[in-house]
């Protein structure tokens, strides 16, 4: 299906990542936003609040981030594609109801424009230190999809993809921007509506009494949804449940329910995966990065290649689910992985785990507040090729 032209601001724009994310959401068909303002994400909500009346959308500024996430879950079950937007401290407050969205298999998008943490940290400066929180922040076992854009253009393009993936897998998709990308202004080209692929909500069309909100048959796919208010007497809950949505509090039900939540993502990793690679075939060293760091890393890789080093680059556009099989395969071919990230080592731990000692993993940590000096990444590359 193609995007509804009413929400697509076709043309060339000079806008920042936050505004581009807002345009991506509206183009993707998002018509409900609940949020609480927080730097550096507020501009996303501002733009959507301004644009929504023209496209029939609704923005509610909630009392806090707990309520924002709850409203998103409720709205999604009432039909519209729904989203919230926040930054670190607000993301922490959303974790409980994010778990509810995961457990109730609710499609939605959660935008986190990352800033330096912990706590209120660096409100106006960049960070990438919420990546592990994105993976494990809510309690219990689950798998999630997280996407990291590296430019305002991608804030548009990938927000559309985030909504599409959330509909396809009935899972919250975490859109992990960072302050640098969010507040950076660049050219953003928004295509014609008929060039934008949209995954619509899969609504149930059968007999009312036959509807089951969940499908735990082991094929790692999800079933259709209904709209609250259309006369379906169904039950959905955060408790462990059966396919009818009713609570079943025992180990057998837990096994089916939780394995389904994990497998629908992990077993479809290759379908979900968005990765860019360059010159990895003969590489002795591969630099793995995501978000804004991938741009700075490319600068370092270009310098390293100019100096004759055999360096490849891999950019994780989807960071979660992690491309475990791919990294395992590559680890027997290269000497080292270099992992620069604006945190003290989060994704690098995953790389190290997958490399399993076959290749060295060299992290290039940065506590936040700025992007890496490309020379620091270059130094790590030099260490890796030795």
């Amino acid at each position: 299906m193609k995007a509804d032209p009413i929400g697509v601001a076709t043309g060339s724009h000079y806008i920042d990542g936050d505004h581009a994310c807002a345009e991506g959401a509206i183009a993707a068909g998002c018509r409900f936003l609940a949020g609480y303002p927080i730097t550096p994400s507020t501009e996303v909500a501002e733009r959507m609040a301004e644009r929504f009346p023209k496209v029939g959308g609704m923005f509610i500024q909630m009392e806090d981030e707990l309520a924002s996430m709850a409203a998103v879950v409720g709205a999604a079950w009432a039909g519209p594609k729904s989203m919230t937007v926040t930054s670190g401290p607000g993301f922490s407050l959303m974790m409980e109801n994010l778990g509810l969205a995961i457990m109730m298999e609710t499609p939605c998008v959660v935008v986190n424009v990352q800033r330096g943490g912990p706590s209120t940290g660096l409100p106006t400066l960049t960070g990438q230190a919420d990546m592990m929180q994105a993976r494990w922040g809510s309690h219990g076992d689950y798998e999630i999809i997280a996407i990291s854009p590296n430019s305002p253009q991608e804030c548009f393009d990938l927000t559309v993809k985030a909504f599409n993936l959330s509909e396809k897998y009935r899972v919250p998709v975490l859109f992990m921007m960072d302050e640098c990308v969010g507040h950076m202004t660049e050219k953003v080209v928004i295509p014609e509506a008929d060039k934008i692929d949209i995954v619509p909500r899969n609504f149930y069309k059968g007999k009312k009494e036959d509807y089951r909100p969940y499908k735990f048959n082991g094929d790692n796919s999800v079933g259709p949804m209904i709209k609250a208010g259309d006369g379906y007497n169904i039950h959905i809950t955060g408790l462990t449940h059966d396919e009818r949505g009713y609570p079943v509090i025992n180990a057998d039900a837990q096994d089916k329910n939780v394995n389904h939540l994990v497998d629908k993502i992990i077993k479809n990793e290759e379908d979900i995966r968005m990765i860019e690679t360059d010159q990895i075939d003969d590489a002795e060293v591969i630099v793995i990065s995501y978000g804004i760091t991938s741009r700075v890393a490319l600068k370092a890789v270009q310098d390293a290649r100019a100096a004759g080093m055999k360096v490849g680059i891999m950019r994780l556009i989807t960071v979660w689910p992690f491309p475990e099989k791919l990294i395992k395969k590559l680890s027997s071919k290269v000497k080292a992985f270099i992992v620069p990230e604006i945190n003290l080592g989060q994704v690098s731990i995953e790389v190290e785990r997958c490399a399993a000692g076959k290749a060295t993993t060299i992290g290039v940590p940065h506590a936040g507040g700025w992007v890496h000096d490309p020379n620091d990444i270059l130094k790590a590359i030099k260490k890796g090729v030795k």
Partner: protein
Amino acid sequence: MDIRFSGFGGQGIIKSGMLIGKAASLFDSKFATLTQSFGPEARGGACSAQVVIDSNAVLYPYIVTPEILVAMSQEAYEKFIGDPKKGSIVLTDTDLVKPKTKRKDVKLFSIPATRIAEEMGNRIFANVVMVGFFTAITGVVSIDAMKKALPGSVPDRFIDKNIEALERGYTYGKELTN
């Protein structure tokens, strides 16, 4: 080309950077990345916009040593004058900046941008006068692209005034260098 536009909040510093980046990337077929920094105050605090313009995609988004510095306040001038590399272009507002720190290894050009804007009826146009001056002196963006960048970025009813401001700054710059 690394450019820093600086002044105090309320002067339209960020807007100036935005206009230059928009002109370069939408109408001059270049890549332009704008980042900004400001203090906690809404008005009056130090404020700067950084624009990186390149014929290739911009990888490192921030500027380290600007090749062009525009200072529209004394505070901004003194704060940033140490940064530009040798041979850089420094543009100031004649009336608002009285350099205490003088650098002999940069090319300094001044325009009474705020005074010109006041002659036009409102000092709010000072930043666009400066953008016109910037266009004439640096040649980093074309005057045609700058004119095209105005619609959508300034209120429609003030388009003509902004074009006039742009042209006055541009003409002042051309006369100064001819």
